[in-house]
């Protein structure tokens, strides 16, 4: 690993930014300020952060219905995101897309997606374009344990493999697909046990250890840029919140959930401790980062609230290029 202290602190900030964004969002949904289906990334911050820290701006990602973490980690602006969630004209999609459809092509973000399993083929296509055009961009496709049972995911793996494309499949195994435990929707213990069937090298990491995720991704990126084809990275993590804001969560115990929020499991608490223990940063620095992020999120909310809703005349625009 070749990370400077500064970079590590940056990763801490990114995770915290995701956490704070999501916590604020939950509050805003519960208080009726924001509507629609909202899926929170709380507890999984180390995955998106570790992965995207190993990417360039010109690299591509495809995201999911649970996309805020990926977007923020890839450089997405919290004010534009918040404005989109508030359905405002100033939002990433002019208020037309909402939580499940945020994209920023300039940052290589090819979109969140409301259809489970639709992202991986799209990431493969971006990888195909990179290979054809001869640039060294890689594509990362984030998807869940649940998505891994969708046919399109299988197809995408096969395509990336036969075409030896610079694509990295990042499995967020967060123990659930909606209300169903991973063990109830597939018999393999790990999704990545399926990788060998496509001759795709795979690695399993502690998805709550941001540096482990980073390291695995860095390897995969190197291999992809060198033309060695795809890699699968399975990140073991846990979805702390319900499937969506409002989920009654009848299908799991409070204890199970709480166990993942402990200081030695929560990805942010863990990393904070490490930064302090290894003298990479002092508490003051981290606290001021915390404050900055808090402010940033507050400002994002303010920006969103003050922004105008899209004009009715927007309805029929952007259908065709």
């Amino acid at each position, binding site marked *: 690993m070749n990370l400077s202290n500064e970079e590590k602190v940056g990763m801490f900030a990114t995770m915290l930014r995701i956490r704070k964004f999501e916590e604020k969002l939950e509050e805003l949904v519960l208080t009726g300020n924001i*509507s*629609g*289906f909202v899926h929170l990334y709380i507890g999984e911050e180390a995955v998106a952060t570790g992965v995207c820290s190993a990417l360039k701006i010109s690299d591509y990602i495809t995201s999911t219905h649970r996309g805020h973490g990926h977007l923020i980690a890839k450089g997405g602006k919290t004010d534009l995101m918040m404005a989109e969630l508030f*359905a*405002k004209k100033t939002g990433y*999609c002019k*208020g*037309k*897309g*909402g939580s*499940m*459809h945020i994209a920023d092509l300039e940052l290589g973000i090819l979109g969140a*997606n*409301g*259809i*489970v*399993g639709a992202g991986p083929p799209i990431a493969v296509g971006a990888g195909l374009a990179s290979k054809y055009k001869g640039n060294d961009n890689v594509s990362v496709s984030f998807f869940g344990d*649940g*998505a891994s*049972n*969708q*046919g*399109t995911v299988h197809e995408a793996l096969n395509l990336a493999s036969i075409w030896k494309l610079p694509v990295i499949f990042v499995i967020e195994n967060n123990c659930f*697909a*909606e*209300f*169903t435990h991973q063990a*109830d*929707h*597939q018999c393999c213990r790990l999704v990545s046990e399926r990788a060998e069937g496509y001759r795709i090298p795979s690695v399993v990491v502690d998805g709550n250890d941001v540096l482990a995720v980073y390291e695995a991704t860095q390897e995969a990126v190197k291999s992809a840029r060198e033309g060695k084809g795809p890699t699968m990275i399975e990140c073991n993590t846990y979805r702390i919140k319900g*499937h969506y804001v409002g989920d009654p969560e*009848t*299908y799991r115990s409070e204890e199970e959930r709480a166990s993942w929020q402990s200081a030695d499991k929560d990805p942010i608490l863990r990393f904070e401790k490490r930064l302090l223990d290894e003298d990479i940063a002092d508490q003051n620095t981290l606290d001021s980062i915390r404050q900055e992020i808090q402010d940033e999120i507050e400002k994002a909310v303010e920006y969103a609230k003050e922004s105008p*809703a*899209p004009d*009715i005349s*927007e*309805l*029929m625009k952007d*259908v065709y290029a």
Partner: protein
Amino acid sequence: MATMKLAEAINQTIVLEMERDPDVLVLGIDNCAGGVLGVTGGLKDRFGENRVLDTPISEGGYLGAAVGAAAVGCRPVVELMFVDFIGVCMDQLFNQAAKMRYMFGGKVKIPLVLRAATGGGVGAAAQHSQSLEAWFMHIPGLKVVYPSTPYDAKGLLASAIQDDNPVVFLENKALYASEGEVPTEAYTIPIGKADIKREGSDVTVVATGQMVGKALMVAEKMASDGVSVEVLDPRSLLPLDEEAILTSVKKTQRLVIVHEEVAFAGSGAEIAAMVAEKAFDYLDAPIKRVAAPFCPVPFAAGLEAEYIPSENRIVEAIKAILE
């Protein structure tokens, strides 16, 4: 009689049919926990995991499994969750379920119900708010049912489950919580019979899903202006009760069609075309369609409100052809 929500009426019907016929199975994502739509609650506890199956995220796989189970004697009731997800499993519906009987020379029956939540109004954006009736109508071998009240939902779903053909059963999201009077005992409503929700003599409004309620509000309002609006709910789009529509149009001589899907190549196009052929000589005015504009469903509430046909737009359409 009991007052109940549309979602409850559907749940109750599934329970009654499962009790009546041991061949009825339920498949869908998270159905055991009651489903994301909140319609299948209690089924697992009552009938066990052998009859109420949670499916992995693989719509083509589990719809196909339902087709196979139906072919050998089960009656699967499948939940697709959002109708928008049909794109990953359309093949099993239109090339397999709907065509097997014909392709096999009449040697198989596929008694299968595919339930799907339809329509907008909940800020769910472009991939969770669509209405796709017209696609299903275009599939020979299929039936398409679309109730607008808890009463109709119960009777039509019972018919759908008892039907020996594949049936797409559309549930309007905005109506799940709408209430109505529903008999507690089992009953059926024949698929293919329209219902005149309100009689009138000046103009026929054919409406589906949540548009029925809007049309009725409009009829109520316009009655005080002396305009008599007949509101006809086809209840099933395939088969379509052409006779009922033609009878109404021959009486009123004017037709407005209201639906939530986009107008272009939507279900209303078929209804208009049918009338323009079969009741042309009775028509006194152009046929108007009130439907969604030609764009994906937007997220922003203001835009979505503009997108979904409003009572105002229905009134305007009626006025335009009454002039």
